[in-house]
């Protein structure tokens, strides 16, 4: 009898009146408000954009769209301007990632020592990241002002002045200027994150290596780099995705000009939608950006997995 009761006991647990964490619907109740919200304001618009990218739709009459299949994609991929946009995006993203992660690593290594005022230094280094993008675009534009900008005064003083000083009006110098501004805004984040990753580097190991007469570079590569490598990878991924979607800094500094020299995918998409009023083309450009981001994310997953397997061997 008792045995029977015991074997039955679990069965009655299958539908408890109140299980430890409520019924099996409980998680969905917690999830539902946010899911509905994100669905309505992210998933539905995304689905609409995917649909739009296969249609010809004008901003002036957005409710009337004509299904054109892959025409928008065929159009942009045969367009030389779009090829230039892709190349500009590639240059911008790669330079942003290398610049922000590289500068962040240098600063992190610099601050990863005990010295007086380290706390103040760490706090001040965070400032660019905290500054609103709008304000950054505004002050950068003023600092780069051809006549009164401090940057030109400085460059002139050291003999590197750009003729006429119109850096943002030059198809050669506008992109580098935007890059420097972007990296200035991003390096605090990468350096602070890398600084916390560096705390995991075993001190005695680096010290032992130095004692054994290993050079600094060798110690960095053999010890420090091995510890922070995953963090560097994650930061590079995050910086890539953010840089592909960055809009306001570029838009406010150059609007993609001069002659398209700073036009990234997102700038192109915005201009197509609101200047050319071609919502279908704009959506197709946006989808190209989204697909590139997806490929980057999937690629980084593969690399991480391969690296993990390597480590297990």
């Amino acid at each position, binding site marked *: 009898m008792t045995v029977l009761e015991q074997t039955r006991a679990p069965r009655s647990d299958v539908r408890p009146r109140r299980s430890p964490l409520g019924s099996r619907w409980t998680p969905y109740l917690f*999830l539902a408000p946010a899911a509905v919200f994100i669905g309505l304001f992210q998933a539905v618009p995304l689905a609409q954009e995917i649909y739009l990218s296969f249609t010809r739709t004008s901003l002036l009459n957005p409710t009337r769209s004509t299904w054109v299949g892959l025409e928008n994609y065929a159009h942009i991929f045969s367009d030389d301007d779009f090829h230039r946009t892709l190349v500009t995006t590639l240059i911008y993203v790669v330079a942003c990632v290398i610049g922000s992660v590289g500068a962040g690593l240098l600063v992190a290594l610099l601050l990863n020592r005990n010295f007086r005022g380290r706390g103040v230094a760490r706090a001040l280094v965070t400032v660019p990241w*905290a500054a609103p993008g709008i304000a950054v675009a*505004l002050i950068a534009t003023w600092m780069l002002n051809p006549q009164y900008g401090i940057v030109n005064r400085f460059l002139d003083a050291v003999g590197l002045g750009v003729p006429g000083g119109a850096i943002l009006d030059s198809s050669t110098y506008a992109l580098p200027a935007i890059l420097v501004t972007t990296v200035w805004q991003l390096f605090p984040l990468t350096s602070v994150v890398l600084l916390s990753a560096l705390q995991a580097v075993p001190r005695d190991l680096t010290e032992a290596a130095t004692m054994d007469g290993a050079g600094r570079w060798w110690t960095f590569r053999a010890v420090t780099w091995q510890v922070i490598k995953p*963090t560097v990878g994650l930061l590079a991924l995050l910086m890539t995705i953010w840089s592909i979607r960055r*809009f306001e800094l570029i838009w*406010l500094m150059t609007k993609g000009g001069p002659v398209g020299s700073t036009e990234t995918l997102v700038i192109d998409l915005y201009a197509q939608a609101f200047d050319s009023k071609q919502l279908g083309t704009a959506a197709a450009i946006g989808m190209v950006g989204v697909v590139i981001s997806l490929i980057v994310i999937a690629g980084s997953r593969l690399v991480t997995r391969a690296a993990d397997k390597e480590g297990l061997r």
Partner: protein
Amino acid sequence: MSRLRLGLTLRIVAVLVVMGVAVFPLYWMFVTALSSNSDLFASEARLLPDFTQFGVFADALAEGETLTWLRNSLVIALGTTALSIGLGIPLGYALSRFSFRGKALTTVALLLTQMLPEALMVVPLFALFNRFDLLDTLSGLILANAAFVLPIVALILKGAIDGIPRELEEAGRVDGARPLTMLVRINVPLIGPSIAAAAVIAFFHAWNEYVFAVTFIYAPEMQPASVGIASFIGEVGTPVQTVMAVAFMFTLPAVAFYLFAQKYVVAGMTAGAVKG
């Protein structure tokens, strides 16, 4: 020994240079705001602020819409913070404490929202807001901003709840407390710092947001400061000093708050957004 000295000196110089580079643009904003016209357009740049010009901040506040802009930004930012925290806490709790079908998918979906450009979503959201009469309203901007920042907020809060031992809930379970009670009574008080960090991130996401604001708002009295300040770029009517003074007052709260909450924000960002 002298080589060691040299290395130390170089390091100190490098640290000072980095600090200078980090702070200079905002310092320059301040100096420009506090410049007389003659200094501003002189052939030699004046590198120090001229404090006799301090009235420029009062002028900037008195001028036109500055206060309205800042007030609108504040309303949008507070609304976005409340909404995203309010929805983010239960979402983070569900992801942290339960295993359920679709959990992995939910997490991946939250991470993937990080790659969607606002500029792409502007058009469909415009159509949606048009249908529900949300154009030209601050509530519309609050909804759009909260949707974009909610995934980060939820991931940060999930990370925080992960760090709280489940045993603390056991006691509540024995007492027959419902999950909602346990969330509110046990978890929320313990993740206070992370909630603060997420709130700072949500607040300044909305404070700084530009694309939605410039597209969805027409009425000048509804404009937030981001749109107002951006309208100064390339415009020549307003004195540079006033422009910089407004921009500085817009920037200062963001920087001050980040410095104040830096520790938690960085911990939250690294735990939630970066680690995933």
